[in-house]
């Protein structure tokens, strides 16, 4: 596959969709690696006591997953993500299949940047985490 370049990027191009199964152990591994080992991210019973439907994925992990969608799209092209904004709309429950998706929405000739929408979708089609990213293509 050829690498993405500023010229090759078109508004309407897609990132993903990528489907993947997020396991509870992956969430626990993230919580452990980042010092977020708190009950709502590690234990169903404890999370339910906080009024949650079960253990949830840290927002930071959702951000990391979305960030990876963008970096996978960038590949080895030499472009760089310079901004990523996320809104955590609904809890992301592990042990479910998630779909990651994005669309190129805008290009700026002056800055040589591309803007994109990215989101994490549930099996039911709800966009649980939404965001936008800016990728810069150096000359």
């Amino acid at each position: 596959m050829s690498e993405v370049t500023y010229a090759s990027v078109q508004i309407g191009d897609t990132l993903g969709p990528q489907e993947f199964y997020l396991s509870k152990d992956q969430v626990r591994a993230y919580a452990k690696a980042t010092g977020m080992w708190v009950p709502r991210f590690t234990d169903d019973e404890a999370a339910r006591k906080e009024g949650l439907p079960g253990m949830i994925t840290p927002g930071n992990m959702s951000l990391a997953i979305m960030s990876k969608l963008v970096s996978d799209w960038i590949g080895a092209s030499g472009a760089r993500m310079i901004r990523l904004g996320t809104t955590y709309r609904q809890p992301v429950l592990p042990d479910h299949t998630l779909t990651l998706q994005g669309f190129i929405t805008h290009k700026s000739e002056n800055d040589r940047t591309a803007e994109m929408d990215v989101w994490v979708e549930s099996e039911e089609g709800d966009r649980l985490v939404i965001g936008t990213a800016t990728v810069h293509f150096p000359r």
Partner: protein
Amino acid sequence: MAVDYDPAIIGRVFETTDPVPVSAEAIATFCTAIGETNPIHVDAAAAQKGPWGGITAPPSFAVTFRNGQHFFQHVPRFGKQGFDAGKDVEFGAPIRPGDAITLTSHVKEVYEKTGRTGSMVFVVVRSTLTNQHGEMVAHVDHKFMSRT
């Protein structure tokens, strides 16, 4: 019904943390946890030939740094429970093993809105991450949501 807080807090730096060292192990563990396999983040030999001449942390590593103890003394709290409602991150210099990262934080914005779960107050805290060379590594705008 305006939100009750001292407007003087907006824009005033309330905390600069001690530098937090970044180890190669911490970056490797992080990559494993998020399933990152890109050689520029996980393979020292390959990364050396890459754009940064060595291993760099994935961009999302920037949000793993914490505010210090002053956070809860200086950031206004509304209601009982706080939630992480999202982050807006601007990326600067990459984070490398051996870096020491300092967080400088201020309250950027406070606003109220209503949603499915009731009335909420949002406090946006901006933390600027700086490395040991004084380079800006990231601006992290962290949206804290409290139900009131």
